């Protein structure tokens, strides 16, 4: 049986274990998060949405997905 490699990451402060070699874009689509409505930060760097497909998730990555809410 083929072994699936997993990586441990943090999404919005919560620990998650996901398949390795997954792109950031597919991570968002798997979680049904619309890219148009959020901003994404990986390891404290804001991600250019045009590059999101090229970014692969690595072990220990800290991902923050934020959006706008009413306030102020």
């Amino acid at each position, binding site marked *: 049986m083929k072994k699936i490699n997993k990586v441990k990451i943090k999404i919005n402060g919560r620990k998650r274990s996901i398949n390795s070699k997954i792109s950031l874009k597919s991570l968002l689509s798997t979680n049904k*998060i619309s890219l148009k409505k959020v901003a994404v930060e990986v390891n404290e760097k804001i991600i250019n949405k045009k590059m999101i497909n090229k970014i692969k998730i690595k072990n220990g990555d800290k991902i923050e997905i934020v959006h706008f809410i009413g306030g102020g």
Partner: protein
Amino acid sequence: MDDYLNISNKNFKSRLIVGTGKYKNFKECSEAIKASGAQIVTVAVRRVNIFDKKKPLLMDYIDPKKITYLPNTAGCFTSSEALKP
């Protein structure tokens, strides 16, 4: 002569900037913004609840292509608090 507020090559007819907090719901907020004529609204930035995607979003009610979002740090005292509720 037309008098516009120009910020970063964007012209705004209205100089009124309104908040998006404290409304009963997003519908009421959207209607109030429309009635005010404001073209800029202040918004807060928070983490997406990835486990509750059914929750309505502000962007579903206030089109960011028509209304400019001005993010603020409502309720935050440090830069890290601004992103981490």
